[in-house]
């Protein structure tokens, strides 16, 4: 669960850095999005997101989606704290408030059961 939280925001940051280095892509040329995949920063972002996805799938196999998603949002807090203590970035009161709310939210959901008990195991799939 911790790896999910770390890899996802790092991957997004790499993608953002890569996309900013490319010229603007219009909807008239969607294939330019495919070509963007081979940019080094975007490739590094994709590698991080593959690591995230493997951990995420494992978590989803034993926990509810509504348990996993808020918990993995703790990654935003980890990145903000890394910026503060590792990169000496300033964190505004708004960000501290955001960190506090996410921490409370994650703590709140983690106190409850991670999986909904089903009477019939087949109910776990998507209903028509």
């Amino acid at each position, binding site marked *: 669960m911790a790896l999910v939280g770390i890899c996802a925001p790092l991957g*997004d*940051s790499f*993608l*953002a850095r890569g*996309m*900013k280095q*490319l010229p*603007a*892509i219009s*909807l008239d040329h969607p294939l330019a*999005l495919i070509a*963007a995949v081979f940019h080094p920063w975007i490739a590094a972002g994709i590698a991080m*997101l593959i690591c995230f996805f493997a951990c995420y*799938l*494992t978590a*989803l*196999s*034993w926990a*509810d*989606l*509504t*348990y*996993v*998603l*808020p918990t993995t*949002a703790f990654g*935003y*807090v980890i990145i*903000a704290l890394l910026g503060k203590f590792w990169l000496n970035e300033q964190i*505004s009161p*708004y*960000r501290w*408030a*955001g*960190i*506090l*709310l*996410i*921490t*409370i*939210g*994650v703590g*709140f*959901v983690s*106190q*409850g*059961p991670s999986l*909904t008990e*089903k009477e019939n195991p087949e*109910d*776990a*799939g*998507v*209903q028509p």
Partner: protein
Amino acid sequence: MIVLMMPALGTGGVNPWLAAAMIGGVAITSTIGEVSTAAAMKSIGDLDEIRAKSGLKGAIVAVLTCPMFFVGVGFLALAFFALLLALNHLSLSLAGPASASLTLVTNAVAAKIFLKENVDRRRWISAILVCIGVYLLAH
């Protein structure tokens, strides 16, 4: 509310409605992908147990032979390209948290309807707290 706040957040010269459409597109495709993937993983069973019994190869085979998994991955891939497009036109501080916040709420609704998950008061409050927290973190 998101649209009204966009001029203050800076859409980089992009029409606020187009920016909202980009973020909404990410949230919708992402929600379909997340719900389909969660349904697939629940139908497969605990991956840790499968890996302990059949090894890593067995776990990979179990995932790759589930058709619903590919539906989920297909929509998550669409969401990925929708996010790339949004990041190309909007700032990360807007596109990232806005789509993540919106996706948390749409996922809770979709999980309750389609996955029959027990989204009780605790999970709703948690989703909303995290949603607001992610948004504030962008400032």
